[in-house]
């Protein structure tokens, strides 16, 4: 199994989901994530799974709700405008404590926006995509390999904590091709005593629901959920550090911009600038710990992202504005070049000199 293949990011998500035991995919086409659905449509019928092109994004997410209620692994995928439509369903999944995978291969917005890559759904994903008090697990892949690996991880943690997970990729991640070693197939998925699978007259029936008639009861479900969130924030943040040992400037970036930044950092190092990078891999939970530690060592931070500074706010919150956080960004489907990031690094480093 561990043979390398050449895959598009979107295909890697689809194949990794199948290997993770997902046999139920519901979607609706939208650029730049259509290959997820295209791959599923070719593969699912061959392995006895379900591929269903729903009549809308809203229908698709509610189909996911249905399958998730039975304890089976289910997923949907879309791109930014489609995710807006799904938010009602995601809130219902969160309210019913159901695990599921939602893939968002982001494009420029707001509105219909464009079809080229963006990271502008950062707020939407990390603040709880929908009404009510909740979070979803958010993963931000930076390579085709991570598209595959984080798909497996998302299913696993979603089940562990009984909550929806979102794979938040930018359009470039979905479209680019790289060699990838696919994960091992998951043979058995853990028993779910809460699932609606038929009582066979042997047990009390399970109820999957997000409606509570008594306010005190509803309050308690929120408190229980947030106790779980606290555990997740302690145990599950993922990140990668690059050349941070002696760094005086810390770049923070994810997805395609982390790759661009990496090139810029290597070049800046050649020019004698001490710069490194912290690359958050989970965006919720946000990796606060390495940032707090870095805030004691570096002189300043630069957020490099494809939005107007959404993650920048999380960095500032994490370090409690202890150091300046500059922003280097392009939006609307544009991507900064390594030279643009290098300039931002030089400007920031220069200010401190």
């Amino acid at each position, binding site marked *: 199994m561990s043979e*390398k*293949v*050449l*895959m*598009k990011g979107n*295909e890697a998500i689809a*194949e990794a989901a199948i290997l993770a035991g997902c046999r139920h995919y519901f979607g609706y086409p939208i*650029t*730049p994530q259509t290959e997820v659905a295209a*791959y599923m449509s*070719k593969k699912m019928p061959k392995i006895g799974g379900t591929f269903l092109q729903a009549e809308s994004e809203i229908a698709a997410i509610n189909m996911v709700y249905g399958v998730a209620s039975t304890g089976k692994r289910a997923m949907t995928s879309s791109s930014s405008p489609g995710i807006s439509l799904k938010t009602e369903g995601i809130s219902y999944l969160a309210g019913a404590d159901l695990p599921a995978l939602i893939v968002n291969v982001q494009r*420029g917005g707001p509105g219909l*926006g*464009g*079809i*080229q890559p963006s990271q502008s759904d950062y707020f939407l994903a990390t603040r709880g995509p929908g009404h009510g008090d909740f979070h979803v697990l958010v993963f931000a892949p*930076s*390579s085709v390999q991570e598209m595959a690996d984080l798909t497996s991880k998302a299913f696993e943690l979603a089940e562990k904590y009984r909550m929806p997970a979102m794979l938040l990729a930018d*359009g*470039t991640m979905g*479209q*680019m*091709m*790289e*060699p990838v070693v696919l994960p091992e197939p998951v043979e058995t998925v853990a028993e779910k005593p809460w699932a609606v699978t038929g009582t066979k007259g042997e047990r009390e029936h399970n109820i999957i629901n997000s409606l509570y008639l008594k306010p005190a009861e509803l309050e308690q479900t929120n408190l229980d959920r947030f106790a779980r969130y606290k555990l997740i924030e302690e145990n599950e943040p993922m990140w990668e550090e690059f050349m941070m040992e002696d760094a005086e400037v810390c770049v923070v970036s994810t997805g*395609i911009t982390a*790759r*661009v930044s*990496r*090139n810029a950092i*290597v070049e800046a190092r050649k020019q004698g600038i001490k710069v490194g990078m912290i690359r958050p891999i989970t965006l919720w939970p946000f990796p606060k710990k390495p940032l707090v530690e870095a805030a004691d060592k570096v002189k300043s931070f630069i957020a490099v992202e494809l939005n107007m500074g959404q993650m920048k706010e999380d960095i500032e919150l994490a370090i409690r504005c202890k150091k300046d956080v500059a922003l280097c960004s392009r939006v609307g*489907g544009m991507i900064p070049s*390594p030279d643009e990031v290098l300039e931002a690094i030089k400007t920031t480093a220069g200010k401190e000199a």
Partner: protein
Amino acid sequence: MEVKRLTLFAGHYGSGKTNIAINYAVWLKSQGLPVTIADLDIVNPYFRVQDSEKLLRETGIPLIVSEYAGTNLDAPAMPKEAYGLVTDPEMYGVIDVGGDDRGALALGRYVPDILEENDYEMLLVANKARPLTRTVADTIQVMREIEEACGLPFTGLINNSNLGPDTTVQDVLDSVQYIEDLSRATGLPVKMTCVRKDLAPQLAEQIDAVFPIDLQKLYYMMEE
């Protein structure tokens, strides 16, 4: 290989058609032939021939592309100049067909003219490292779907088995059996084996018709 007036590259999407089309057009030009490249991929709005616009401009190869390519309009519109290329007997044409049957459908509009002139190569670009064309049977399925969609039968095969920047000499050697089996099963000749330029000298000694190519798409590598 013998040069026909029109050379069309089709196959499973992500098999390397665009990369090869650009490299092949540049090679034709270097042979002193008048050449124009046409991007007929109206399905995938990301990563297209247009991304190599600078190289093509510097090489003096005109590019025919949908006026909406690279914009935010996800409109499957055919470039109007493409018909001119198909019917111009003085011009050598390299045509990058869209991926799979869906991508090849649009080609059908030009097929009566191509068949009438009968000076073309319709080449299947095959990459064994692509998960949906790993076996000869799966590749033949994709091939038949494309032929059915556009109505133009394939005339030859191109072995483009690769893992992008990770490709080794051994990976290419390991794919020889696959392309030979595909050739036997379809009765189509293997016209060339495309390899990354740095691997070409070693492989040229062991494989016939090695065609060295420069990779056109780079996504800022994670590893130095």
